[in-house]
């Protein structure tokens, strides 16, 4: 991987980290409402996975998708506007934090039912196969989804039909407050996924370079017609499940052990060691990201709210114009 690519991964992770930190502030200030699930600690997954995809590929994500959306290239302003419920939001303000969509970037949400997006990803890949299009669908979900029937039905179906699909399990070790070992008899998820006849392996989800390389291999394999792949990306969330979560179910020493492998700082250290990022460069990058966030928050806050008269829009095509 080139130095420029590694720097790009770092920049993406830094943008995600600072974006999420600003979300905490805005939530505490009462500007963002509802459920808010942050991916602080999991930035390497977002940066690495999305860097491995092409613009024509499809992405299906979960309710912890801010990082995926940012790494896909959705502008910060439209993400903040979505969380502020403004019309300039990437879903027109109708979705909120858990339902980020962008048709122009083939970003299909933002699904807040655990595993609910996985069958949809199978269908997107099926459509590509039927229409003879050379692209893959990346389906992101968590370890919690691995316990759902929809995941098992879907991976079997995708394997049976050898669809161009990559299953990306962002294993942060907790399904809300329930640890992996407390909900799975066998915790080696890649091993279990392999039983479906799918090429499966695990990668270090705290290392963006490793994530990108693994995703590229998986996507190339699926694109070449060899059927779907399953990647278990082993990571950890540094903050609670959501803003409502008191986080009483995790051992502090476990958290600290994972924090010692902070993906943003790991990447920064590696770049520094190779002479690709010095203190001045880091400072410059931090300032640029800070300005990007400030500008985005300001613009999003100035955007209009949808008039109540438009309430019944977007239910069916017939109601598109509010009639």
């Amino acid at each position: 991987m080139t130095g420029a690519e590694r720097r790009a991964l770092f920049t993406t992770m830094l943008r995600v980290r600072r974006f999420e930190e600003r979300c905490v502030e805005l939530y505490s200030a009462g500007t963002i409402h509802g459920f808010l699930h942050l991916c602080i600690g999991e930035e390497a997954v977002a940066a690495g996975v999305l860097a491995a995809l092409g613009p024509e590929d499809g992405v299906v994500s979960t309710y912890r998708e801010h990082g995926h959306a940012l790494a896909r290239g959705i502008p910060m302003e439209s993400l903040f506007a979505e969380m502020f419920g403004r019309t300039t939001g990437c879903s027109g303000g109708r979705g909120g934090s858990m339902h980020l969509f962008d048709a122009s970037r083939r970003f299909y949400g933002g699904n807040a039912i655990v595993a609910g997006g996985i069958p949809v990803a199978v269908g997107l890949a099926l459509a590509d196969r039927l229409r003879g299009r050379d692209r893959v669908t990346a389906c992101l979900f968590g370890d919690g989804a691995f316990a759902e029937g929809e995941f098992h039905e879907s991976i079997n179906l995708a394997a049976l039909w050898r669809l161009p699909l990559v299953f990306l399990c962002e294993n942060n070790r907790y399904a809300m407050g329930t640890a992996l070992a407390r909900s799975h008899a066998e915790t080696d998820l890649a091993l279990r996924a392999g039983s479906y006849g799918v090429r499966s392996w695990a990668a270090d989800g705290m290392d963006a370079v490793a994530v990108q390389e693994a995703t590229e291999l998986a996507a190339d394999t699926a694109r070449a017609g060899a059927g779907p792949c399953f990647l278990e990306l082993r990571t950890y969330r540094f903050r609670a499940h959501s803003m409502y979560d008191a986080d009483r179910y995790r051992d502090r020493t476990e958290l600290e052990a994972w924090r010692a492998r902070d993906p943003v700082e790991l990447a920064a250290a590696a770049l520094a060691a190779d002479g690709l990022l010095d203190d001045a460069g880091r400072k410059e990058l931090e300032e640029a990201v800070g300005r990007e966030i400030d500008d985005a928050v300001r613009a999003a806050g100035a955007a209009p709210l949808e008039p109540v008269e438009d309430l019944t829009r977007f239910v069916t095509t017939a109601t598109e114009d509010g009639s």
Partner: protein
Amino acid sequence: MTATAGIRTVTFREAFREGLREALATDERVFLMGEDVGRYGGCFAVSQGLLEEFGEERVRDTPLSESAFVGAGIGAALGGTRPIVEIMTVNFALLALDQIVNNAATLRHMSGGQFSVPLVLRIPTGPGRQLGAQHSHTLEGWFAHVPGLRVVAPATHADARGMLAAALVDPDPVLIFEQIGLYGVRGELSVDAGPVDLDGAAVRQRGTDVSVVAYGGTLAPALDAAAELAAEGVSAEVVDLRALRPLDSSTVLESVSRTHRLVVVDNAWRSGGPGAEVVARVAELALDQLDAPVERVGAVEVPVPYPRHLEEAALPSASQVAAAARRAVG
């Protein structure tokens, strides 16, 4: 099939199959998938012969994974194809409720109108003959509750033949509920039968004394009851709702404004069902038109039992409809 002077006699099964064959033949984006739709020919033999005619890519047998293949239909619809997904019966559709309610019905809205889900679900519904509680449900009303879905209940051969084509043109998800009890029933169909409008109720029989509102599996008993009443000198008008969402209140209201009496017939339990919604709308908009209390006929509020005599007692019948109409007329 026999043809005389532009009219032939077909079963509902044949009418549905004709619609499917035409859809597959005329639009290469269309494909059919579901449990046993291919090699087996469809649980109710509706898709018999289609695998041989159109091949395995377009007539796809799925595993018994309702949530996955319904969700795959949603994704394939998002991806620019026109999937027709058959769920073997409405009883099994409960295993795909998440995909239907949380995705098919909401993706357009949650995305601020960026995505359409042009998915067609074909769902056989209603009781068979002594199949027991788990295979006898009538649940189309559940789906009609949900904004974002279009729900239709073909009760005539022309609708069985023509609703699919209209559903495939609709950019939003359409659920077609096919009556299991009607598949083998023969009726007349024009040789040039084609697409029909999905919107709007239809008056199937004109009458002046009482309006009988039915849909899907209850149209036939409603028409039988009307014939029985005619012999007694009571003129019943029979309205076929055709679509449960959006519900066409205006045809019902217009009918009631002429007859001033209303009987509503459900195959389902009456509590919270489509018939209850019809009655509520009449109460809201035309209460002053009613000269008698509304009469309701529906399934007895019990899981459908296995023994023949109890099953018959649990389900609505033409004689119950006729008796309700007599009460309304007074």
